[in-house]
């Protein structure tokens, strides 16, 4: 997985590229924890470059979301497509977590 990031208002925007499978899923949590530890507690993950996710990816995301919440922050997701959108939907993650269609919506939250 590859990550690029930029600061946008109160949020840290994280662009995620690649595959979130059993082997790579821990990289996502590690990347988010790195930002949490620098004080960035409101994260937005743009998943437009994410091609694939498995249950290991969901576990990594769930653990990350709980850590954000424990710090008083949150993590939102945007630009899901294909199998990623399907997996979020059938697993209930699209109602469990803030999932927005566009980056503007994700960054425009209060």
């Amino acid at each position, binding site marked *: 997985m590859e990550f690029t990031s930029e600061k946008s208002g109160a949020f840290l925007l994280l662009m995620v590229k690649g595959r979130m499978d*059993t082997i790579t899923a821990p990289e996502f949590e590690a990347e988010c924890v790195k930002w949490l530890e620098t004080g960035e507690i409101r994260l937005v993950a743009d998943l437009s470059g994410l091609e*694939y996710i*498995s249950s290991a990816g969901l576990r990594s995301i769930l653990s990350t979301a709980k850590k954000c*919440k424990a710090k008083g922050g949150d993590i939102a997701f945007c630009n899901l497509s294909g*199998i990623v959108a399907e997996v979020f939907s059938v*697993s209930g993650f699209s109602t*469990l977590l803030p999932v927005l269609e566009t980056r503007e919506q994700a960054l425009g939250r209060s």
Partner: protein
Amino acid sequence: MSTCADQPSLRLPAVMDSLEPLRLFALEGAIEAGLGPDAPPRLELALEEALVNVISYAYPKNAPGGPGDVELHRRVDPDAFTLVLLDWGPAFDPLSEEENEPALEANRMADLDSREPGGLGLFLIRTMSLASYRRNGEANELTLRFELPVST
């Protein structure tokens, strides 16, 4: 429905390093079979979840002589592409989790504080493929079927 010797198959130790070669073996067959554009990710997902389950649970940890094997067969039928996954661990039907369905359903409805990790892997196998299981002698045999697009 049994696995024939002339089908392409790949047998490897049940370890995480085997995920990638088995994924590529399955995808190669799926592309040859002409699966529709949405199908390969679903196939990859059902296969990954099934393999991770075998790798994690089929064989005792740190067994002398290393872990047992996992064997993947692929088959093209007129209407479907089929993967058959074999392991030689104790009998386990990954599709028989229906009794856990209420708990899974409650978990899927839970909020962030009460949501538990896990349980989704086997659920995703059932969601992403037409799956069936049988105990075949000393082997667990999981069949994952993916319908081919109707040719016109």
